[in-house]
């Protein structure tokens, strides 16, 4: 291995013990090589010291820009998961419909057929024949519920009694499993983010880093805003972020948060409050001569035209 190859590895911190021994031999036997290695090491150190410095202000710019660019991305076309979520209510409606139909038919059966009291139900037979699955357990439950509600089970024809609840129960179990899996997928991602942001928020609070705490609060506000029924929490964190930004006299960040609050209020249908915040946001950005002005002005125009 040549001196150059070894020196390159040495500078990259990738040299093995054996290779280092060879390099030592080179430098010990040649003062010229020793000088070269010293100079190369010094150049490497100086180059590292010349690394472009990203200041806290730059980091803030990047964080704020990141959020904005993500907001610029149009919503994804409905994925299979979202489509399934979308049919959630319809599916639930159908289940109710099927169950109701089952009850009506059961009731009708009682009046029309009036089976002899001694005729045994074959419910037990159905249960024994069917494998022990969640579906069957639910069938049993639904069947029992139907019996209780109607209090006529013993008098209804066995076939009718088993088939109607079975259809309803199968649908119910399949759909509830499906919905549970959808909920799980949706919430696990948000929970993960939520934990991450909350941890960050409290860590920054403890560290007394108001800027990072405000950024974490803003992220929490955005996350809660996208969740159903958590608008109050969203507003709480936005308000906290806003108060921190105001304490720091950070006009640009205050403006960004007011913009985000405006989007929340628009979502809540509070147009007047929303536009008031958007106007304040734009005013602040204008006075701070911020580059973000163009973005928020376009948001304002877009919503105003609606």
């Amino acid at each position, binding site marked *: 291995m040549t001196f*150059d190859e070894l*020196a*390159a590895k040495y*500078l*990259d911190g990738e040299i093995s013990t054996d290779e280092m021994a060879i390099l030592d031999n080179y430098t010990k036997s040649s003062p010229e090589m020793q*000088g*070269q290695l*010293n*100079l*190369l*090491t*010094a*150049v*490497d150190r*100086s*180059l*590292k*010291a*010349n*690394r*472009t410095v*990203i200041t806290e*202000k*730059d980091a803030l*710019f*990047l964080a704020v*820009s*990141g959020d904005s*660019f*993500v907001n*610029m*991305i*149009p*919503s*994804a*076309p409905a*994925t299979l998961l979202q489509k399934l979520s979308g049919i959630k209510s319809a599916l639930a409606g159908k289940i109710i419909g099927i169950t109701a139909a089952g009850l009506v038919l059961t009731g009708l059966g009682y009046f029309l057929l009036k089976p002899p009291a001694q005729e045994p139900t074959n419910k037990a037979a159905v249960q024994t024949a069917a494998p022990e699955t969640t579906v069957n357990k639910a069938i049993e439950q639904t069947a029992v519920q139907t019996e209780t509600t109607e209090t006529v089970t013993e008098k209804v024809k066995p076939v009718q009694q088993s088939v109607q609840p079975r259809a309803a129960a199968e649908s119910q179990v399949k759909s509830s499993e499906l919905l549970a899996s959808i909920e799980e997928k949706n919430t*696990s*991602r948000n929970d*993960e*983010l939520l934990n*991450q942001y909350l941890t960050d928020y409290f860590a920054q609070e403890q560290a007394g880093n108001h800027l990072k705490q405000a950024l974490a609060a803003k992220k929490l506000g955005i996350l809660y805003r996208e969740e159903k029924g958590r608008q109050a929490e969203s507003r709480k964190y936005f308000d906290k972020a806003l108060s921190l930004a105001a304490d720091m006299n950070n006009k640009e960040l205050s403006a960004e948060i007011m913009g985000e609050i405006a989007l929340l209020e628009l979502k809540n249908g509070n147009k007047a409050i929303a536009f008031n915040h958007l106007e304040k946001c734009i005013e602040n950005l204008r006075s701070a001569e911020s*580059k973000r002005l163009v973005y928020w002005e376009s948001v304002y125009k877009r919503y105003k035209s609606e």
Partner: protein
Amino acid sequence: MKESQYIEMTDEQLFECYQKKNDKIAFRALYDRYSKKIYAYCLRVTGNRESAQDIFQQVMTNIVDKKESFKGGSYIAWLMTITRNTSLLHKRSMKKTEELSDNSLVISNFHSSDSYLKEMVGEAVHKLPPDYREVIELRYFDDFSYDEIAAITNQSISNVKIRLFRAKKFLSEILIPFKEQLV
């Protein structure tokens, strides 16, 4: 998909998610991977924050608006092509409006710091042949990894390493008059 799964994905896989499904998390993951490096590059080539922020926003807007122009290959190479072209156009427009009368001076001043030595090294980097200068700047000033530099410069990793070492040797030769101060 869980957040952790995004972390494990390659640049190209993430960009595909964003390109095909408008996946915001994938976009954000890519943004988090490269925003600092891209911004550092913009800062270095312009020499001032305002212009760097202009270029950076233009680059990101291009990525959002022109995502279809990515036809495969290396994402970082594509991203750096956009960044370089945008920087070049910006510098030209600045020259036209005479707002930046002496770019080399601005860059030189940017590299200067409290240390005279750092300034000397910065000056020396500008005396390197373009190929050498590029790898030094990407590696040391913008903090790109060997893999990323290889993709950006369309070279193998071993070639990047060789070029980088030669560049450092070249630099050390330029800086021989300042040897005592350096070592």
